Each structure stands twice: as structure tokens, then as C-alpha cells.
């Protein structure tokens, strides 16, 4: 499979850095490079020479709807992943745009280069090629290839610059926790829904992402990770130490690894174990008030 975009000559480009991962987009037509959302725009950067992922963006043509390879993953929602020669094909579907995909991404086997193809009749004036969920799917695949993990959590940078990650599935209280912390001064919430953790120069760091929760909390900030807290709403706030194996398993339930890639799964499990070995991971039973802040500061 060729992902060189043989007929696409870039007219303009834009660059993002999410979780420290550089993404370069080169548009074959100015009409394709419409502005990023306000949230994603916070992750725009100056031109990158060494992007982790380089994408050309062009219009979807009839020939691009050719037969796909094996279905590797059905998200049950908007996107599906297929094999495509040595690489991958991600199709995005929505009932709003009929049965044909409104967007297709073709990636090489290492997810370092590819093409994004947009249907001309799929509401392009308001759609950016990296609009969710494609941006997160691409980043998840980059992370799974030895770069880090994305967790379902709320990342809080306290006034001392240290990062605390509050993890939980939908309804656990991530946004609620973020709102409690925002009552304090000097706090930065990197996201109230998705946070990336990576090892950078031997230090575990927490990265904000554009993918926020109900409170729309998101920033491109980065902080050293000093504690992970698995959320449980309770009548009283208290912390409970967890055995590393238990902590790893609970964190795995809050990650988004490429389930169709055995190597990525293995890396994710190993990385989570590494996090649990290097940073305290505790069960946080909490009531949504200042007792959460006090407990974390007292024990963190």
C-alpha cells in the first residue's frame, strides 16, 4: 500500500503536539485545512521537522472506496479499523452522511505516515480532518507502540507544579473531582476525561489532551506525575494503598490500548506495571469536597 499521497501536493500545513507526540498535516487543498476546534487549537505548534506522524489530507475519491482488507476492530461507534496491505485503514461512519464513510485514514504499518481522505459532501466547512474520534485513535496507536498510555482520568497540576491523576470510568467522578480542585488557587486541570502518561527522560509525566469531559477542562500542560488515585465515591474521604498487581489491573480497565495489536497490548500492560512500581497508586474513596484536596496534599 502506498501512503505517499502520490497525487497530493501540499498547499498548506498545520502541526500539533498531543502527549508530546508531533503530528504534521499537509493539505492538498486550502478548503481542507479549516481551523481546528478551540480545544484542539491549544495543541497547535510551530512547524515540526521530526513529526511522529505525518499525514497528507485530500478529498476522498471513488477509487478510495475500493474493497477493504480484513476487519481488525469494530468500535461499535463511528470508526472501524481494517487491514490495508501492510498498513491500516480507518473508516469513520455516521448516519448523518449515509452508508459510505465520511472520512478514511490510510496508515503505514508503524503509524508514522499516512493520508486522511474526506468526502466532499460530508459537511466539510465545519469539519477538520483530525476531528474526534480520529485524532484519539491515531494517538492511541502511536502510544501503544512504545510511547506511553492514555488513561480515562482527570489530571490535576497542583500549585507546586506536581501532577496528580484521578482515574475512573464514566460516572466515577472525574469531572466532579476536577471541579473540586478548581476551587483552589493555582490549579491547572489538563483534562477532565483523558490524560496521557509517558516516560520522558526517565521521569513519568502527565500530559493534557484535547479530549475533555463535561466540564470542558483541557490544557496542553505537562507535569511530573507523583500520584495516581482510582476514584470511588463514598460517604467519607480516605485513601487505601493497593498492591501493584491490583493497581495495574484497575488501571488497565481505564486505558484505551489498541486491542487488535498484541504487541501494543503487551507494552501497555508492562508500562502500567512500571507506573505502579514508580508512583503511588491508591484507591481514593471520596466525597466531592475539599477533603479530597486535603487528603491528596497530606499523602502525596
Amino acid at each position, binding site marked *: 500500500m502506498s501512503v505517499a499521497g502520490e497525487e497530493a501536493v501540499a498547499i498548506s500545513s498545520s502541526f500539533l503536539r498531543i502527549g508530546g507526540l508531533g503530528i504534521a498535516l499537509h493539505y492538498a487543498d486550502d478548503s481542507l485545512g479549516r481551523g481546528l*476546534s*478551540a*480545544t484542539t487549537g491549544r495543541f497547535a505548534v510551530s512547524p515540526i521537522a521530526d513529526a511522529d506522524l505525518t499525514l497528507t489530507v485530500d478529498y476522498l475519491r471513488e477509487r478510495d472506496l475500493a474493497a477493504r482488507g480484513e476487519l481488525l476492530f469494530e*468500535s*461499535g*461507534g*463511528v470508526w472501524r479499523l481494517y487491514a490495508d496491505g501492510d498498513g491500516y485503514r480507518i473508516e*469513520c461512519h*455516521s*448516519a*448523518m*452522511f*449515509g452508508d459510505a464513510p*465520511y472520512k478514511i485514514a490510510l496508515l503505514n504499518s508503524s503509524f508514522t505516515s499516512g493520508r486522511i481522505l474526506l468526502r466532499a*459532501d460530508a*459537511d466539510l*466547512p*465545519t*469539519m477538520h480532518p483530525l*476531528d*474526534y*474520534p480520529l485524532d484519539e485513535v491515531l494517538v492511541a496507536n502511536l502510544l501503544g507502540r512504545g510511547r506511553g498510555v492514555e488513561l480515562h482520568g482527570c489530571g490535576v497540576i497542583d500549585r507546586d507544579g506536581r501532577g496528580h491523576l484521578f482515574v475512573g470510568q*464514566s*460516572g466515577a467522578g472525574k469531572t466532579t473531582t476536577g471541579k473540586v480542585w478548581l476551587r483552589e488557587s493555582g490549579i491547572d486541570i489538563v483534562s477532565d*476525561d483523558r490524560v496521557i502518561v509517558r516516560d520522558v527522560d526517565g521521569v513519568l509525566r502527565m500530559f493534557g489532551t484535547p*479530549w*475533555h*469531559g*463535561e*466540564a*470542558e477542562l483541557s490544557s496542553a500542560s505537562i507535569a511530573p506525575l507523583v500520584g495516581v488515585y482510582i476514584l470511588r465515591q463514598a460517604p467519607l474521604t480516605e485513601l487505601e494503598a493497593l498492591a501493584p498487581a491490583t493497581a495495574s489491573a484497575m488501571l488497565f480497565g481505564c486505558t*484505551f490500548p489498541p486491542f487488535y495489536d498484541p504487541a501494543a497490548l503487551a507494552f501497555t500492560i508492562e508500562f502500567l506495571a512500571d507506573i505502579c512500581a514508580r508512583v503511588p497508586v491508591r484507591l481514593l474513596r471520596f466525597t466531592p469536597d475539599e477533603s479530597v484536596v486535603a487528603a491528596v496534599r497530606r499523602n502525596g
Partner: protein
Amino acid sequence: MTMFVNTLQDVLASGFDARFCASGHSMTPTIRSGEFVRVTRCEETSLRVGDVVLTAAPRGLTAHRIIELDSSRGELRVRTRGDNSLSADAIVPGSAVLGRIAGVERDGRYAAVDSRGALTQQTLAVLRRVRHSLQRRFGRATSNGIPETAQVRALSV
């Protein structure tokens, strides 16, 4: 929230639509974070799998797509899921469905979001292409970009 939900139900029952600002990515691209959605009243019997509905869910007001309708226990039960959510929502009684998300305000215009509206959108897309062809042929703009009578016919689909 109970008072708010009751007020919303009264508004919808009176024949008025409600308008909300959506937050989150669970329904992208159908509904994008920050967009205003229009909620219309709907009867339980009119609900279909694929409809995007507003429910009074345990986590709060949620606009997700119906993936399952179950009447096997006498009363209707509804399960929804965000198009981008990893898991389905908790099943709720049909009475928890406050209304159907009929459309979204996007870029200064209104776009239907329900499965039945997709046909309307496709029809309107065809009409827009026809309009462009007419403009190129005759050099004359039509009002609102679509011939009014044709627009009325499309919206009635």
C-alpha cells in the same frame, strides 16, 4: 435537577422545542461539543433504534443514540450509547426519554441528526448540487440556495 426535568417535560408537552448546548465528544460528528441541539417532544411508541434522544440518566441529562428497545417486561425500556462511547449506558425506562434530538445548529444553519433526518440531508445535498448546476447554467441565485418549493418537499420527507 428534578424540577428542571419536570419543567422541560412541561415545555415539550406544550408543543415547544427545547434548545441545549452540548458538551463532550461522545456523539461527534453527529453532535459536536459546544453545538446547540434542538429537542422535540416524542411519544414512546415513536422511538426507534438509531434515534438520538435526551434522557434523564443517572449521570444527568444525556443525548445519546438508542441501541436497544425492550418491551418484553410490559413497559418500554431503552438503552442508549454515545457513538464514540466504549460502553452502553445503563438501561432506563421509556419515561426517562425526555425528547428526541431533532437537529443541531451548525455554522449558521440547522442540520437534522436523527436516522430519518439523514435522508433529508442527502436530499438537500442533491438539491444543492442541482442549484449549483442551475446557477452555472443560468447565472441566477435562488432564495436560501434552494428553490423554496423543493425545500418544503425535502423537509417533509
